[in-house]
């Protein structure tokens, strides 16, 4: 398939990057072939943390299986839960209360912000600047505290259940989120000053890891990775769920398709998420936070699919039900897996230092890839 560039010759160096390597952001194993410092081929090897989550879900009830998905893309656990809850609700044809919808969107966007903040710090760390990582964590901590107060967890939230959300918001929620908005508005400008404007950083990112619009589509890339190549794929815009169709926000796209474009898309998405949170925080409707559902859920016989936009791209949940209390078959479509498949295409011909930068802009979360 890739004969011309991918062929190895004698004298080429084969290096194992990972499964324990600081830049693979988890247990990812890449076998790379180098000629000098130039990458000839990258082969991702998966399977080090495979937990067969989809198989596990088949023995769990429709209320239980959502918890497992928090452990997949642990930086977008709210959004993963959201996708599963949506799919079950679709099967049961439940209409959830307005308040729950707004809370869900608020939580989703806060999660996206926290995820992008972590990514931003890790991205800078990948190209050798350690300091931004700590600065990003300082702001992320405020979101984590909000989450901890409302959901009782900081990372694997399990807050969304079929029919709405599990508990009502904490009384401090609105005040804390407003404080966060004021804080983060100044900090995101600081982010730009510290990293985006840096000459070394721009030189490391521009014209590196290019992927064209056609290739991005054919590799199945989604999320900021595809949007940086001018693919319009924001599920929140294309197939709006909850209250996204009533909100005023933009789908961020870029045309360059290189690492810097992917970087800029994510940074601008942070501003968009912040604006969504700002729009919703004052208009959380009163009412129930959960629709009335039965204690044991039974989906009618059939196939159901729902999708949401996580911080990394499209997350799809596909349930085949035989009418019982547990799903007959579940398949998750996780964004990281398809994005990772384009890594080899992006990295060929670049230097080994660029591989790290490209992996950084793909925003890999390994349990999301290796379910």
């Amino acid at each position, binding site marked *: 398939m890739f004969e011309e560039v991918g062929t190895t010759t004698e004298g080429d*160096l084969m*290096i194992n990057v990972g499964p324990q*390597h*600081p*830049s693979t952001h988890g247990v990812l194993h890449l076998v790379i072939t*180098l000629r000098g*410092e130039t990458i000839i081929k990258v082969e991702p090897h998966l399977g080090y943390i495979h937990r067969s989550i989809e198989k596990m879900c088949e023995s769990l009830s429709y209320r239980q299986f959502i918890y497992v998905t928090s452990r997949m893309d642990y930086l977008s656990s709210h959004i993963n839960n959201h996708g599963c809850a949506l799919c079950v609700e679709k099967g049961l044809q439940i209409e959830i209360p307005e308040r729950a919808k707004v809370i869900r969107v608020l939580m989703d966007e806060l999660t996206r912000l926290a995820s992008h903040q972590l990514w931003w710090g890790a991205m*800078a*760390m*990948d*190209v*050798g*600047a*350690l*300091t931004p*990582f*700590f*600065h990003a964590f*300082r702001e992320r901590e405020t979101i984590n505290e909000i989450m901890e107060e409302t959901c009782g967890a900081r990372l694997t939230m399990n807050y969304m259940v079929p029919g709405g959300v599990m508990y009502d918001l904490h009384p401090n929620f609105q005040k804390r989120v407003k404080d966060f908005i004021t804080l983060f508005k100044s900090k995101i400008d600081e982010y730009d000053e*510290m*990293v985006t404007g*840096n000459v*070394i*950083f721009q*030189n*490391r990112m521009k014209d590196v890891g290019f992927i064209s619009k056609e290739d991005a589509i054919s590799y199945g890339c989604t999320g900021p990775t595809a949007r940086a190549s001018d693919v319009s794929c924001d599920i929140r815009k294309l197939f709006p769920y909850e209250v996204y169709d009533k909100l005023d926000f933009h789908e961020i796209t870029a045309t360059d398709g290189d690492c810097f474009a992917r970087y800029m898309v994510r940074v601008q998405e942070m501003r968009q998420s912040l604006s969504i949170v700002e729009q919703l925080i004052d208009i959380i409707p009163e009412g129930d936070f959960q629709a009335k559902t039965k204690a044991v859920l039974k989906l009618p016989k059939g196939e159901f699919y729902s999708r949401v936009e996580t911080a990394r791209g499209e997350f799809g949940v596909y349930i085949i039900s035989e009418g019982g209390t547990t799903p007959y078959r579940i398949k998750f479509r996780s964004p990281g897996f398809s994005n990772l498949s384009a890594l080899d295409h992006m990295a060929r011909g670049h*230097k*080994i*230092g*660029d*591989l*790290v930068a490209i992996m950084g802009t793909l925003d890999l979360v390994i349990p999301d890839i290796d379910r």
Partner: protein
Amino acid sequence: MFSLESITNSIHTWLNNTFNPTLALIFEFVIVGISVITLFAVLGLILVFMERKVSAYMQIRLGPNRVGFKGILQTLADTLKLAVKEGLTPDGADKFLFNLAPFVVMIVAMLILAPIPFAKGFQIWDINIGVLYVSAVSSVSVIGILMAGWASNNKYSLLGAMRSGAQIVSYELSAGLSIISIVVLTGSLQISQIVASQENGWWIFKGHIPAIISFVIFIIAVTAETNRAPFDLAEAESELTAGFHTEYSGMKFALFFLAEYVNIFIVCSIGAILFLGGWMPLHIGSWQGFNHVMDYIPSSVWFFAKVFFLIFVIMWFRWTFPRLRIDQLLNLEWKYLLPISMVNLLLMTLIAIMGWHF
């Protein structure tokens, strides 16, 4: 002006009066040797601690604050930890070269300490080609690094060593040219004379434009030569995990680590000597009163203040900048720094000949 010269002189006289000249010389060698090793250890402790505090300050963290007052004994604890760790030699490594490499790097760092004047008249060896000696000896350390990387039997180490070779050899050119530009101004290679020539003002002020250009080039080049960020490609932890010293543990690693910090101290001292007057107090032309007041501050304080200021600048780089890529690094040197420093050397020569400096 208070100086340490009297101490060194009295020791020298006492030794010569008590023993025959050969024995006195041997005793002096021993004293100097012990002092250098002590200085090596003390500098390592101080600089590692300083690095942590500076990085903590930049990264809104606290830094070490438990062991001793404000964590000041932290590096001692680290040393203890490194000392009791097992020094592994990987299977399949070239054992002799693998074990030799850290010593080569360390001995080179110790050798360059020789011509550095720590205070007025407090210098191990005032050789008449001091600057040349420093540039010549400092380039030997790359052999140690290449040795370490090649002998480790590890591909990451090999890549790191190759990068380091390309990097150090290239950046030595710019560093050398900017050193020569000051030699052109002074007209001497002897470090004591270079310091003495700055009695009525430091070269960075007296040599104005070309001196500032060479100072900037010098700082960039020596940052690269000491493998410090943003030029830390030899160890590049996000790409090569640790580069040339991946396989080193315990004291063998500590020797590389110590040598790196002492090298920073050395290059910053050279920078301070050439551009900021070494131990020379801040003197301004013919302002007798002002110059006299400045003389009250001991020369060693001047020297260490300047050196540690430059060290702080280099640490500041490390905790702010992302890392360059290897081709960008070489481009910067060969396409920008080297041509600029060559032109700058011509400019400097012109200024020296025409006497356009202060």
